[in-house]
């Protein structure tokens, strides 16, 4: 990204319930664990349930393939692919 683009990025009002696109691969922090095999991530107020993301992925940054998204109630489902990073304080 050019220097100018870095300055121009983000000059907009961003929704509190961002949309997701089925088939996209995205990185998200897992907020909590719903059960042994499902993690829950909040992207703003959009809820994404991640199949295959167990409790060990909580507060980790994970790569997810979005499989479902319902814009009417801002909820979606995704498939866990891999852990790609940790919290800011993991160095």
């Amino acid at each position, binding site marked *: 990204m050019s220097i100018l683009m*870095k300055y121009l990025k983000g000059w907009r009002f961003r929704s509190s319930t961002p949309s997701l696109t089925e088939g996209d691969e995205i990185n998200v922090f897992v907020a909590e664990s719903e059960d042994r095999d499902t993690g829950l991530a909040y992207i703003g107020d959009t809820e994404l349930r991640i199949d295959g993301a167990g409790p060990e992925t909580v507060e980790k940054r994970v790569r997810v393939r979005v499989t479902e998204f319902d814009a009417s109630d801002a909820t979606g489902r995704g498939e866990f692919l891999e852990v790609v990073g940790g919290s800011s304080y993991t160095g």
Partner: protein
Amino acid sequence: MSGRRDDSSADDPTDSFVSGTADEAPRIAFYGGRGMSALPIAFFIVWAIVQTALWRISDTGGLVVGMLIGLILGMFFVRGDWKTYANTIFEGMTQPVAVTAIVAWIWAGMFAEVLQDGGFVDGLVWLADVGGIGSALFPAATFVLAALFTTGIGTGYGAAIAFVTLFFPAGLLLGANPVLLFGAILSGAIFGDNLAPVSDTTIVSAVTQDADIGGVVASRFKYVFVAAVVAFAGYLVAGQFMGGLEIAGDAAEILVAESEPIGLVHLVSMGVVIGTAVAGRHIVEAISWGIVVAIAVSLVLGLLSIGDVVAFNAPEDAPLAEPLEFLPILTIVDDPDAVGVGGSLLEGAAGFFELAILVLLIIAAAQIMIRGGAFDAILEWSIENLATNVRNAELTMVGSSALINAVITINTAAEVAIGPYISKIGERFNLNGYRRANILDAQTAALGYIFPWSGGVLAGYTAMQDLPGEYDWFTADMLVTPIDVVPFVFQGWLLVAVFVIAAITGFGREYLIDRESEEVARL
């Protein structure tokens, strides 16, 4: 916030705060429940409030002692082996967040000192003079120039001191209102402290939120710009209505005598640092280039001698001193007390030594709080009661970082202490590193220069008290009482307002899915 449970569950989410040893690291149990692990930090905060707010002593060394005592006191409440507590202090101090910030501060300190010693402020005074700026425009112009200066040198405290020393008297002579002028200087300091890539608070905000400094600076420009445009208009309007003081003597003559246009050459040094940092180069590399350029142009133009940059004062009986006395960096001194090393580079770096120690100790105390469970308890309470959706989460981040900076004078120390909390709340809602760093640093920069006990106000006011001794015409009744300036620090109030509005409306909000901050290893 505490005492609800005292367990040591292996899947504790705050484990991820610790490098490497996250899962196997030991927990610390405290008498009185997990809330007691906050005792060292709590003691430090109380100490900092008493020392800096109630007794008005802005001394980083005193805060170091407060933190040390807090860490010792906390140990007496540990159940079982105290060795775990002691080891956790080391564990905290060795976290990359502290060390990287300290390295960058020391580099930034050297750069700032070279610019100050190289006559940058003199150049700005000259610019105001030739621009024909009158009393009504002077506060607005002061805001712009102080903002420019602070963006270059990174230290708002240093800028407040430099501008009060050199610019404040010039403004009074031109008939500007002293309270408005002091407010404009503080506003400029806030602008630069918030935006400069070499600012200590910018560095801390980026490092604690895992974001690259160049990207952080570019992404926060929009908030700073919006606040600054309104602040500038505010100083223009207020300048028309708030009159100055009657001062006898020839104001113009004194002003010209203080002018040195050549100092403006440091705009180039400043541009080198900002340009290379925003272009994504390692911040140490960017500032190193700035230092090299600043020293080179200062030497070529005669603004500094090599002895101003580095100076060795050796005693007479030193074995190799006399044969090498021809070196411009070496002076033989008679007075044993004068023996030592000096110069811009040392003075610039040394300005951060105490703060570096303080930050290491605060990070250690934060680690105690994490290992003991108090951090977890506060976080759980916040998530359940405050950060219930992304808007409330951002308002919580704005409010908590504003509050801690309003009560702790040294804003960098406050920022380090609240950094992990901001990180955790923001990551929960997948706010990216830039947004989190921007929320954190705006409140840090703004609240550090508003209240009478704020470090920036104290720094400027301290410098102002020397003015009656320096100028015959400057009388004690021209001094600005710190409480009077509070409403006139426009950039500070507006920056907080911009972020409250941004949290409510979503202006500038970025999620991890929109853009990920680049790797922090760049620092």
